[in-house]
Each structure stands twice: as C-alpha cells, then as structure tokens.
C-alpha cells in the first residue's frame, strides 16, 4: 500500500515545478520578439493607439512588476483573459473547453501503445531470435524512427485520399451535433445515445490515435522485450519451471510483474513526448485541443494563453509521473524507501 507521506511529498514537488515552469515561460515570452500590443491593435494602428493598448495591458510597467503580478495571478489560478485567440474570454474557460480533447487523444494514444506494445514485447522476448522476434524488432525500430509530422500526412494520404475509408480531419462528421457534457467526444456521443455519432467520432479519432500510438507501441514493445528477456533468465523463473509450472503461467504470473517495472518508468518519462506528439497530431489532423491552441497563441503573442497552456502541460506531466511512481511503488514496495 502506498503511504500518504510518499504521495504528499511528491505532490509538494508540484510547487517548485510550477514556479520554475511559470518563470521560464514568462522570461522566454518577454525575451522573444513580437509585441502583443501590436498584435491586438493591428499592424496599421497608430503609435498612440498601440501605446494605449500597451498601457491597458500593463506592458509598460517594469518587467519585475509584471512578473510579481503574474506570479500572484498564477497562485490564485487566475490566468487572465485571452489577448487574441478568443479576445476577452477567460483563459481558464478556453482551457476547460480544449483540455478534454487533448487528454482524450493522449490517453487513447497511450492505451493503443500499451495494448499492442505489451503483447508484442512479451511475444518477442518469449520467441527470442525467431522470425517473429525479428519482425517485431524491425517494426518497433521503424515506429520509433518515424516522426509524427511524416506518418500523419502519409496515413491521411493512404486512408483518406486513396482508400477513402477514414476522414482527414476534425473530431466528428458535420452531420452530427453533440452537446459537450464531459468534453470527451466518445463519452459524450455514448451519453447522448447516438451510435451513428459515436461511430463517426471513432472514425475521426482512429488515425490520430494510430499516429500517436505507433511511437508509444514501438517504445513499449522494445522496453518490454529487453526487460522480459532479463526476467526470464532469473533463478526464480527457472525454479518455477522446474517445479512443473507451465511456461505461459510462469511468464504471465512471475515474469510480467517484474518485467513491467522499467516499462512503467519509461511510460512516465515518455509522457512529455506524448504531449509533444499530441501538439503535432492536433496540428496535422486539425483537432482543436490545447496543442493547436498553444501553437496559435505563440503565433499571435497571446501571452496569457501561452503561459496557462504550458503550465497545464507541466501539471499533467507531473501528475502522470506521480501516478507512475505510485504504480511503481505498488509493484515494487522498496521504491518508497
């Protein structure tokens, strides 16, 4: 059982992580070129109007004052209002609308990676140095090597353009109208009891999930294979086999749990890459999650949206790693010590 002290200690680390990320993002935004006042006022606006906008936004104050004000706002979870993306709308509301979209994509991508990566890794380890093993390893190496910005358009070309069996972009067909209850399109269509809409949403999500899942699957299967090979050679596995336990039961009962520990660690560390992948995937498939929101906000110098989005990414990453640590300590209680 995981101790409360362990979880509390890890949650406390969220404070310096968020402070650090908030400070880095604030500094980078103010060092990078681009003036939000000009972006808001427009390129043809008079200098006086641009100055007025700058004063209204507090951008004429010394940077250290802006920084203290920003930290105060972050501490109270007040991210202000969007300068450009949805002008005047609270950033928290924009994030609340977009976040479920990205979470749904990332979770499904991760699940797809686990669903295919784990069995492939185990199969590859159990059938070491056979044709199955070689094919799986080549597949895994290809999956790790192919970047999302290449595999995405390629799959769109194949399944949408040539075969015409899957849609190219969006989250659901234009004929379906679903009220957002949870924000997760698959859940919302099921809650509405609209099966055609569910099918449409699933078909729209399939390609983005495959694109995100390929990399995860490749990485997980490689880690699972090497971890499993190491575990299979352990004395306790030989003992279990010598006692007459079947190969399958020995592998699944004694091997899987121990082999899973390093894989869990990799899943946590790789979650950052998964979020980065979600940004690219959303851009390629025109999905309006926080990935595309971040790209648009950077292009339009929408400081509050950029700051809040990056902080949300940091919180998600930290919480996933906390979850990984908790799982890790359940699988191997020595980790808490």
């Amino acid at each position: 059982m995981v101790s409360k002290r362990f979880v509390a200690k890890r949650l406390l680390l969220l404070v310096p992580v968020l402070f650090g990320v908030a400070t880095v993002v604030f500094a980078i935004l103010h060092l990078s070129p681009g003036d939000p006042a000009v972006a808001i006022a427009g390129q043809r606006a008079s200098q006086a109007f641009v100055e007025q906008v700058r004063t209204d936004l507090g951008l004429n104050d010394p940077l250290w004052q802006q920084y203290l004000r920003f930290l105060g706002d972050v501490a109270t979870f007040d991210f202000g209002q969007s300068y450009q993306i949805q002008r005047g709308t609270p950033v928290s509301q924009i994030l609340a609308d977009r976040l479920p979209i990205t979470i749904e994509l990332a979770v499904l991508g991760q699940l797809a990676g686990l669903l295919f990566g784990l069995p492939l890794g185990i199969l590859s380890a159990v059938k070491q140095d056979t044709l199955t093993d070689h094919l799986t390893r080549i597949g895994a190496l290809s999956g790790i090597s192919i970047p999302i910005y290449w595999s995405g358009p390629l799959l769109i070309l194949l399944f949408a353009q040539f075969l015409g069996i899957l849609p190219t972009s969006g989250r659901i067909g234009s004929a379906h109208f679903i009220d957002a209850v949870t924000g997760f399109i698959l859940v919302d269509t099921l809650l509405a009891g609209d099966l055609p809409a569910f099918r449409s949403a699933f078909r729209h999500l399939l390609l983005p999930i495959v694109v995100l899942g390929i990399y995860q699957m490749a990485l997980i299967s490689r880690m699972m294979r090497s971890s499993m090979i190491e575990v299979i050679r352990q004395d306790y596995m030989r003992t279990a086999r010598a006692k007459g336990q079947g190969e399958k039961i020995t592998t699944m009962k004694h091997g899987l749990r121990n082999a899973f520990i390093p894989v869990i660690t990799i899943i946590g560390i790789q979650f950052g890459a998964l979020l980065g992948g979600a940004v690219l995937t959303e851009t390629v498939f025109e999905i309006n999650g926080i990935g595309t929101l971040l790209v648009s906000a950077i292009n339009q110098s929408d400081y509050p949206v950029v700051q809040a989005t990056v902080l949300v990414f940091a919180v998600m990453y930290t919480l996933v790693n906390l979850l990984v640590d908790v799982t890790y300590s359940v699988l191997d209680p020595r980790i808490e010590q």
Partner: protein
Amino acid sequence: MTDSPPSLRDLVVRAGRWTLRGAAVGVALSLALLVVTSPKGATDTAFALGALVLGFGVFAWATAVGLGETLRGVQEYVDVGSAWTEAGAREAFFVLTWTGAGWAFAAAVTAVALGV
C-alpha cells in the same frame, strides 16, 4: 561531494555566495545594456535573463529531486555509463537557482535605481 548532507548553515552561506555573484552579473548586465538600449529595455532584458536562469534552476532542481532516483534506475537499467548522479544534479541546480535569484533581484533593484 561529501557523504554527509550539508548543514543548514552551509547551505545558507553557499546560497548567499551564489546570490551575490548573480547580483553582480545582474547589475553589470543591466548597466552594459544601457549602451545599446533604454534603461527600461536594459533592466527588463537583464531581469528576464535572470528569471530564465532562476526558473530553469528551480524546475530542474525539483525534477532532479522528484525523478532523480527514477532516472538513475533507468540509466543503470539501460547500462549507460554516465557519471550523472542525483546529488550532483541537485548541487548544480542549487547554484543556478541562487545565481538566477540574485541576478533577477539585482536587475529589479537597478531598474528602481534608474527610475524605470
């Protein structure tokens, strides 16, 4: 690197030393930038650079504390023979954090002194 953890007094002395060094950088950079830009531009840029160092230091320190053992475990597992240790990482990011803090604070004080 000593085996026993440093005392609180040692930590405060070292933090103070690195803060002072950072402050010297912050003041020097603010004044040097005055040659090419306005007092606000100079102190804002110096402050942003100091904040960048501070933020990176704090973030990386917290990551080293939180994920240090995990990273060391992965490193051992994949058999990478690097000399990276959690204690070494914490030490390095401690230095960055306090240097950045002194730098940013000094840039802010310089801004006030210049009447920005």
